[in-house]
């Protein structure tokens, strides 16, 4: 039997995921449907140990999605505002390799 405590924790996790899904690049509906399916797939799991294991996976997904958002934002901003930097860096690297080769 699942304890009420565990049940509320699962619901909490589901809500957290749905909240995160609002910003999902492919849209909220896409995320919600997949999230719902993932939970529905395991709806018959009764073993508390098993539930905890599945929840830790859910928490892992939460962390991954947060990291995804951060990286997406960082990369977009970097591309928009620091355009020349990569070219400059590449040029510098190129120059230094040429120099080191000519030294030899």
């Amino acid at each position, binding site marked *: 039997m699942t304890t009420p405590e565990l049940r509320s924790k699962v619901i909490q996790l589901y*809500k957290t995921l749905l909240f995160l899904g609002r910003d999902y690049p492919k849209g909220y509906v896409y995320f919600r449907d997949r999230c719902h399916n993932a939970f529905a797939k395991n709806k018959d799991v009764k073993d508390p140990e098993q539930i905890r294991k599945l929840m830790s996976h859910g928490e892992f997904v939460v962390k991954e999605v947060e990291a995804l*958002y*951060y990286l*997406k934002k960082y990369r977009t901003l970097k591309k*928009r*505002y620091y355009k020349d930097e990569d070219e400059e860096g590449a040029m510098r690297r190129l120059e230094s390799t040429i120099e080191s080769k000519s030294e030899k």
Partner: protein
Amino acid sequence: MALRALVGVKRVVDYAVRVRVKPDKTGVVTDGVKHSMNPFDEIAVEEAVRLKEKKIVSEIVAVSCGPTQSQETLRTALAMGVDKAVHVEVTGPEYNNLQPIHVAKILAKLATEQKADLVIVGKQAIDDDCNQTAQMTAAFLDWPQAVFASKIEKEGDGLTVTREIDGGLETIKVKLPAVISADLRLNEPRYATLPNIMKAKKKPLEKKTPKDLGVDVSPRIEVVSVEDPPTREAGAKVEDVDQLIEKLKKLGRI
């Protein structure tokens, strides 16, 4: 010595939204468009929260100037760990023409009022890309400035700030009080989680008007026209080098 920090946050059109220019060329479409906190301001908020976690800062106050919806942005800041928020309500034509000079005056006034030792803002907003607010705020307060910060460390009575400059980094020492603007690499902002946003609703949010602060926000400029950048013309393929040279010659490039 525990410091008090004032953080400026701006509500802007979300970075992921495709911005569209209004047909009458007076600005960009903002109705029904997703808005969020300016990403550089998120970095500023995160830095203030980290300084608080290091016990360098004792209290963080967030400020936002704009319409009522700016309070949502302030809630996000509160959820990230800010202690209290001040919403300076600016609406209508005044909001449309709100310039960094107005915001800087408001921030300077509030910094004095809140007895702040440290003002942290994002280096620029992703909507107008002005990159002026921090500098002007420092000028109005007559405080030292450390803009484009990529690292902030406490040292003695002041701060050691590493700045991003063209082609490298610059390390400077500033005395407190000071104004700092955050660059992209300063830190990785945390995500405002659902429970924290709920808790943030209980944190104090003060409402003010520019009038209360004695700041004149009447427009100083008039927007003549807002237009899309020119679209890139399609390229053409060439068969061989001779053809390429011929084409370049025709275009007068060589």
